[in-house]
């Protein structure tokens, strides 16, 4: 019974079915969404841990893979993230009480000089949907801001996003600055002009062209 329910939750996340009144997706009209089903699962006594790991996370993972394969696009991912958030909201008390633990902390930001944020936001949604806590420093973020966030969350991973060749050059500087203070920090980089070669050149730890790649890397740590 709970297995079926968890599967339904994952389908709601994958398809972006937020709640009963949401008209999207059209073929799921009038059905319960991630909101109602998560709340129902909690009422039935399903552990918050299971709801996260067997419901919300697999749903986000499936949409992440589809997105990587260009089978769905930004709108579908936004809807999935919205459904995930609707479910996640019911889990907040369990995160606060410590009953459910996140896998770790991921600090993200678009690098200094760059104000593109759509890709960075999607990355944040996907990683959060994979069970991580995401701290979003916003756009145009200088080294000092990443470093002070690291002081607050010393074991966090860092994700740098950049969309412009102009600001790609700043990425190397930021990696250098972070490594000068905390050489053991793992730094992931991405964004339109970034490549694996570039990652090697600036000494970052991981590059991926899509958020799912970052999720896979983080989950292996």
């Amino acid at each position, binding site marked *: 019974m709970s297995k079926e329910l968890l599967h339904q939750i994952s389908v709601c996340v994958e398809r*972006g079915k937020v709640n009963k009144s*949401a*008209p*999207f997706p059209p073929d799921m009209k009038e059905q319960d969404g991630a909101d109602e089903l998560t709340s129902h699962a909690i009422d039935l006594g399903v552990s918050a841990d299971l709801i996260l790991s067997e419901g919300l996370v697999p749903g986000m993972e499936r949409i992440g893979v589809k997105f990587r394969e*260009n089978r*769905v*696009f*930004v*709108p*579908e991912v*936004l*809807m999935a993230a*919205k459904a995930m958030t609707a479910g996640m909201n019911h889990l907040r008390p369990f995160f606060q009480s410590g009953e459910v633990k996140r896998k770790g902390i991921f600090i993200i930001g678009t690098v*200094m*000089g*760059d*104000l593109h944020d*759509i*890709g960075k*936001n999607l990355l944040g949604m996907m990683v959060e949907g994979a069970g991580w806590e995401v701290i979003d420093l916003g*756009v*145009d973020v*200088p080294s000092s801001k990443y470093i002070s966030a690291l002081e607050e969350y010393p074991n966090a991973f860092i994700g740098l996003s950049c969309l*412009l*060749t*102009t*600001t790609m*050059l*700043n990425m190397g500087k930021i990696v250098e600055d972070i490594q000068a203070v905390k050489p053991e920090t793992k730094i992931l980089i991405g964004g*339109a*002009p970034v490549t694996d070669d570039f990652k090697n050149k600036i000494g970052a730890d991981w590059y991926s*062209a*899509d958020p799912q790649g970052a999720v896979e890397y983080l989950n292996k740590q």
Partner: protein
Amino acid sequence: MLTPRENFLRTLRRQGFEWTPIDYWLCDSKIHDFENRYGHRDYKSFFEMDHRWVKIFEKTGSPELKAGIVNSPYFDNEELPDSTEFDVWGIGHSKGSEAAYHMTRMHHPLKGVTDADLIARYPLPSFDPKENSFMINEVKKIHNNGLAVICDLQMTIWEISWYLRSMEELIIDIMMGDEKARIILDRTTEYACQKARFYAQSGVDVLSLGDDIGTQAGPMIGMDMWEEWLKPRHKKVIDAAREVNPDILVFYHSCGHYTPFIPGLLEIGVDILNPIQPECMNFNEVHDLYGDKASFWGTLGSQQLIPFGTKEEIREEVHNRINTCGEKGGIVLGPSHLVEPEVPLDNLIAMKDATRELYKRTI
């Protein structure tokens, strides 16, 4: 010898050409570099461009919004930085860090608005045809100098709507069937139609439309959404211009990968595809498929080739493009986006020189 305008229009109509036209847009800091080197700012003449861009004068729909009035129902209680300036749409732009150069951060007036009525009443900009009657003379003047005229109607409907509402909320409105999406898109479309008509009446040669529907790795949105929400609205704008001047050429810009949308764009009357970002789309493939129905503009990579390429690499790519297009022409060469601070001026010169090396008469 053809005038630049004749050459420009012939190549865009794929009727043969004498030289391959080029188009550059320099960012402020690059214009500054240019001025330091050459003592003037007229880079368009310096690079012998065959055309000039024109833009009408628009007025904000709300002086209050433009002044950034605090107690408006818009801007979602967002604290706007002191440096925020407002464009005619009431969209806020605040300064980035020094590293951001000319680039600004956008603040969306309709973000967080839940009342559809507020969206229906949101003060859009307007333009007064009388105040813009200079446009006819300006177009004539450029024509008399032998040059072609292209007008700027980019951020036509989709982008301007997302700038007003924020991309995330506009997309969610669309997906949820919320009437707010329809209201914003209909209003921006209606305004774009008015401008398109006016430009056509003023005698411009090319109408440039643009709305980003591509990203580095693939389309930004699915085909269903594009077909239902954007394609018919873009068609309206094109039709509005063509009712006045059936011969006006229509240019469409989208960054990123948008190959799947090309057949639909051609169907609604687009003639010129820009920029065909080569890091995201394969130019030769696109040319093979659509080179007999469309012309191209841009096509040289802003992410690799133009900022970091050697002069030799640039020369080779320029020659490739001109040769791929062949005798009939059908290409205006340029970087796939604005020329950013990291681009060496010498690369632009190398690019232009390379187009002139294959200077030929194919008519």
